[in-house]
Structures are given as structure tokens and as C-alpha cells.
């Protein structure tokens, strides 16, 4: 069937054109910035000074330095650990478990837990950073309430366990999203199917593993896609909490990119880092999008 325009629209085509303008601008801007980063990743452009004006083409130098200079590979590893434990293991699994256990509850408890995890999501990143900083400091809540009363020496968590602190803070911050998504997904699983499996003698584990999870598989993939992209490029909470330190302990790629671009001032090298991040996230996204497809 041929698609037909509404008669009013057909006689007022300018409305369609006008509506398309923002989209064209948006797509244009996205392409422009991506193209900008790609082009300047082959230059020695800097933020200030002579090379801010008279930059030159340096070929693949910036890309070679990703592998020959300290920083990129270390940050890639830190980002992988951070993303795996905070997003995939933490937010996703915790979000699913909470959604699965709480959906049968109709009590005050559910309301309290929902409100609590939503709070983490709603608190601005910078505020969250100060909260976690105060909580984990040597004179902070954890030491005052738990460690010291038990007779142990107070622990400076950010100094000793910077990456775990940042991972836990991000789990706290982001679990609400996975919880909401999985709650909706589980609501879509029809009760009859689960009941039928039960009648057929499936154990609780089998019902989850062989019935429920396959049904909500697209939701899992969608969730993974979003939180992986978000976490892989996540910046504010970590930067405010630790600045990537101590040393480089929590220097994820986004912070490495920021430091190289704006503190050292090497915009060309920073562009190469951002292109590399784009490629990595792109590959991960393709992987998840394949998961989204129904099996034949």
C-alpha cells in the first residue's frame, strides 16, 4: 500500500519541512562533532598556546601513543573492571533480583525499598560524590558506626580501596534503572506460562532459567546496552569522588580523556582517545543488538 499524506499536510508541506529542521540540525551536529573528533585525532591540536593556532597533521602518532605511552591501556582495564562489576554484575543482577523478589510483595517494605533505590538515582552526581566521600572518609559514617565500635583501627577507604568504593557508589546510583526495567519486563511474563511450567514439574530454578529469562531476553539486552554505554563513558561521580586517583587507581577512560584534553591540553590526543572509546562502545553495542534479535 502506498503511504498517503493527510490531505491537510499534503497542501501544507512546509509544516513537514519545518518539523524536519530540528532533526536535520541534530543529525548535522552529531556528524559534525564526530567528524571533528575524527579529523583532529590526526593532528597535534592543543587547547592553548602555539599549537592551538598552528596545529599540524601527525598521521597515526596519537593512535600509536594509545599503546606505547602509559595511560590508555591502564585506563581501559580500569574501565572494564568498573563497568563489569558496577553495571553488569552490580546494577543488572541486583536490579533483577530486587525486581523478582519485590514484585510479589505488596507491603510497606516494597515502597520503602523502591523509594530508597530511586533516591540514589535522583540525587545529582556531585551531591552523591560528597555523600560517598563523607561516608567512606576516615572520620566518616562507616568508620564511626561500624569499624571503630568493633574495636578496629579506622580505615581510609578511598586511600586503600578506591576502585571498590567507586564501584559500590555507582551500583547504588544506578540500580534503580535496571530495577524499573526488569519490573516492567517481569510484569509482561504471563502468569499462565509460568503456571504451566510448574504443572509440568519445572523447579523454581528451571522456571526462571528456562521460561522467564528467555521471555525477557530482549529486555535484558536493552538494559545491558544502555547501562554498558552509560557506565563505559561515565564521568561525574568518579571525578568528583576521587579525581581518577589516588594515582591512577580510578582513572577510567572518560577521566583519562578529560585529563589529556583539558589538563594537559592535548586536544588531538584526546580526540584519538574519544575515537577509540567510540569504537569500543560501538562494538559492544553491536554485540548487544545481536542479542536483541529473536533466535530463529
Amino acid at each position: 500500500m502506498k503511504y498517503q499524506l493527510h490531505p491537510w499536510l499534503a497542501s501544507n508541506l512546509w509544516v513537514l519541512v519545518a518539523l524536519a529542521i530540528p532533526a536535520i540540525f541534530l543529525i548535522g551536529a552529531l556528524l559534525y562533532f564526530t567528524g571533528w573528533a575524527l579529523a583532529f585525532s590526526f593532528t597535534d591540536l592543543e587547547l592553548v598556546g602555539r599549537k592551538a593556532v598552528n596545529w599540524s597533521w601527525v598521521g597515526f602518532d596519537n593512535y600509536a601513543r594509545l599503546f606505547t605511552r602509559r595511560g590508555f591501556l591502564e585506563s581501559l582495564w580500569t574501565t572494564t573492571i568498573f563497568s563489569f562489576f558496577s553495571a553488569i554484575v552490580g546494577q543488572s543482577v541486583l536490579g533483577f533480583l530486587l525486581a523478582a523478589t519485590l514484585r510479589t510483595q505488596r507491603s510497606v517494605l516494597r515502597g520503602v525499598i523502591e523509594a530508597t533505590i530511586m533516591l540514589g538515582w535522583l540525587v545529582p552526581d556531585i551531591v552523591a560524590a560528597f555523600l560517598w566521600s563523607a561516608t567512606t572518609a576516615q572520620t566518616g559514617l562507616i568508620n564511626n558506626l561500624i569499624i571503630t565500635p568493633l574495636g578496629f583501627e579506622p580505615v581510609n577507604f578511598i586511600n586503600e580501596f578506591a576502585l571498590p568504593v567507586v564501584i559500590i557508589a555507582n551500583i547504588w546510583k544506578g540500580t534503580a534503572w535496571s530495577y524499573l526495567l526488569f519490573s516492567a519486563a517481569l510484569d509482561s511474563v504471563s502468569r499462565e506460562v509460568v503456571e504451566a511450567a510448574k504443572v509440568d514439574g519445572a523447579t523454581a530454578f528451571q522456571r526462571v532459567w528456562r521460561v522467564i529469562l528467555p521471555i525477557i531476553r530482549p529486555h535484558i539486552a536493552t538494559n545491558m546496552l544502555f547501562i554498558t554505554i552509560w557506565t563505559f563513558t561515565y564521568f561525574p561521580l568518579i571525578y568528583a569522588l576521587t579525581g581518577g586517583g589516588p594515582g591512577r587507581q580510578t582513572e577510567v577512560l572518560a577521566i583519562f580523556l578529560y585529563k589529556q584534553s583539558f589538563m594537559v591540553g592535548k586536544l588531538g590526543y584526546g580526540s584519538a582517545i574519544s575515537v577509540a572509546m567510540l569504537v569500543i562502545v560501538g562494538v559492544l553495542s553491536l554485540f548487544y543488538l545481536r542479542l536483541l534479535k529473536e533466535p530463529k
Partner: protein
Amino acid sequence: MLNKSLATAVAVFGVAGMAMPAHAEVSIMYADWLSSLVEPGIADFEAATGETVNAIKLPGEGYVERVALDLAAGTAADVIQLDSFVVSELASAGYLMPLGDMGSDWDQYQHYMPALLDVVSYDGEVYALPTDTDVRMLWYDKSVFEAAGIAMPWEPQSWDDVLETARTIKAETGIDNAFLLPAGTKQGEAATMQGFYMALLGADTPEDDRNRLRNWAEGKWIGDSPAIRRTLELYHDVYAEDELATASINYATDIGAAVREAMANDEIGILASGSWEFTCLWDCNGGPALPSADERNALIGWTPWPGSGLPDTKATTNISGGWAIGVNKNAQDPELAFQLLTTIFDAGNFGDWTVENRRMAVRTDIAASDAYASDAYLAEATALAADTTGRDTYPGYQVVSALVQQMTADILDGVSVEDAISEYHASLVDEFGEENVITYE
């Protein structure tokens, strides 16, 4: 029909809104700790001209990067507070307005000390007016020293003396930061200057610039030298070997606040910092939180940074920086912007601020004033300034400084001195080319 005319009206207003020039107001960017100088100046300017000033007050941490980024993006304010070391670099990129002609029309311009105007010049043109200069020293907490049984006044003669004192403090009091030597990348220039440079200058003989980051006679950056190695060894001793300071305080969510709090709670023994701390350890802008000078003297003391103690090195070291205020090359109304600048720097406002906050004067008229000349603290700090130097602010310095901070961060991370320095050397070569980097054996 109605729809069409409505759409036309919206479009017309929309375009008109974009095209109509905004009211020519003056904007200014400054760090919160300078508000006691800037804000009275803004009030005076508004009263005198009837203009409204758009005041953009920013946090001190990350301020230098924010300003550079805004200037590069074309979104910076008309009048901008700047760290003096970035002025030549920003000027070389064409972001700042030379003040030459306007400056000579202003009768107070002549009072600025020429040496300090040099710091904020590029290619013979002045691009900003300095707010203050400074000296650097080792501050110490008197109650911590008393608890550790260390004699005061404390007068260390070498790095060994400082380390020995810090070890005693750690052993006697158990505090985590017996000797806080600024390190790492989060506090930016503060780590380079308050920490690394102060040690570097005393790590080797000044001959041939062996105790610097740049050899000026040859015009090359120093990629590896005994001085750099010894300085990194000192960092290694403080952070790894003897654990006299924690890495984490250099990466705190708010470093300034963390240091002030630790100092107030007697959790820092020795703090490598500068002359501004006589007020900034409480409140840079004065105010009710600031105890009297006598009370402060009872709580904290300072001593010049000793050299390493090796033969031919300096007995004490010092390096000076300072801040400045300049005008954006793209200021909407340059004359108005310059008028705001001179109102802030008017003798009354500027002189009061300098003395009340114990800043080191950059103008002869203020330095000669009774209030300034009769202050005991300023007199001692000024004496220290008799033997000082500046940073190696040749274009490219900002990158070098960031690489220096990275070296110290590597030491905090447990990287060996050898590996940290070879990474530094390689990065310098990346940036400036093999021909512009030298090595001292």
C-alpha cells in the same frame, strides 16, 4: 489563514529575538577565593557607571582548565581572572587583549612592579594586571610539633632534617599526614609548584639550570636529570617508603577543604604550601572565621624550604607565582571591560584587600603604605622574596607541568622512579621533538 499568520508571527519574533543584540553588559569570571577583591570592585563599578556586571564566580579547583576551555570555545567572560603562568600561553593563542594603550591612560598603572608585569607579558605586550605574588614555605602545626616533642622554632637545614622530623611526628602522634607534599594530577599547578618545584630547586646546583625543568641557554626542556631523579626519590620516600603522607588527600572530593579540616584537627604535621595560607588555612576572603594574627601565630608556624643538603645546592629554595586579571580579546565593550578592571584595582580597594589578606604587594604604592610596611608577617614574607625565581613559563610549560604532575601521580601509584622518568622523557619528546629535549647525566 489564522494558522499561517500565527506561524509567521512566531517566526518573525523568533528571528528578531536572535538578531537583537543583547544589552551590552560586562561579564567577569573569577575564583571564589578572590571574591573579597573582585566583588567590592564590581559594586564600585556598578555604582559609578550604572551598568550591570554579570559576575561568574567559580570554584578554585579546576579553575585554570575551565578558563582555558571557555576562552578556546569563545564563551569566556569579558574580564577574566587568570593564573599568571597561563597568561603568555593564552596570549600566544590570541585569546587576550593587550593592555598597552589602555594601561598608559590609567594613572595607577605606573605603580606596578616591572618584574611582575614581565610575568604577564608576551612578545613585549602586557596582557593582564597582577593581583598578588607569593612565596613558598613549609607550614607546621605547633600543637602537633609539641605533641611530638620537636623543638620550635623549627629550622630544618636539609631534606633529611625534614624527613627525620616527619618520621618522629608519625612515630609519636600516629597522624597520617606528617609531611604533606602536594602530589598528583587533581590539584593541577599546586602540585607542580608547592611540591615538585620547591624540591627540584634545591636538588642540584643552579649552574646550567641543572635544578630546573628547562635549560634556558640551550632553549631545551630537561627530560632527565639528577635533580628530577632526587626530587622523585623524595616523593618516593614520603609516599611509599616511609608513608609520611596519604595519596588520598591529594585526590579528595574538595582538596582545599580536606587540607583545612585536617590542619584544624591537628592531622597534618608539615604542609608544603605558600604565603597565602596565613589566611587561607581559615578563609581566603577573611570574614568571621579568621582568627586574629596573634591567634594564628600561636597555632601555626613556618620555615623556609631547605635545599637537599647536597654540596653546591641552595640552602633554601623559593619560587613565586601569583594571579592576574585580564581582558578577553573578544570583549563586547573593551573600554567598559577595562574600566571594570581598573575599578577593581583602584588603590583603595586593592590596597585594603592586599593588607587584610596578607597578600604580597605587586604595586610600589601599596608596598610603601603604612599598613603594609608595618605588618610583621608581610615583612618576613617579603624578606623571603629576596631570593626567589619564577617557573619555566616558556610556551609549552602547561603541558610540561601536567607531565610533572603525572610523574608524581605515578610515584603515588607505586611506579618506580626509573619508569616514571622514562615515561616523562618520552612524553616530552612526543610534545617538543627529540631536538628540544636534553638529558643531564
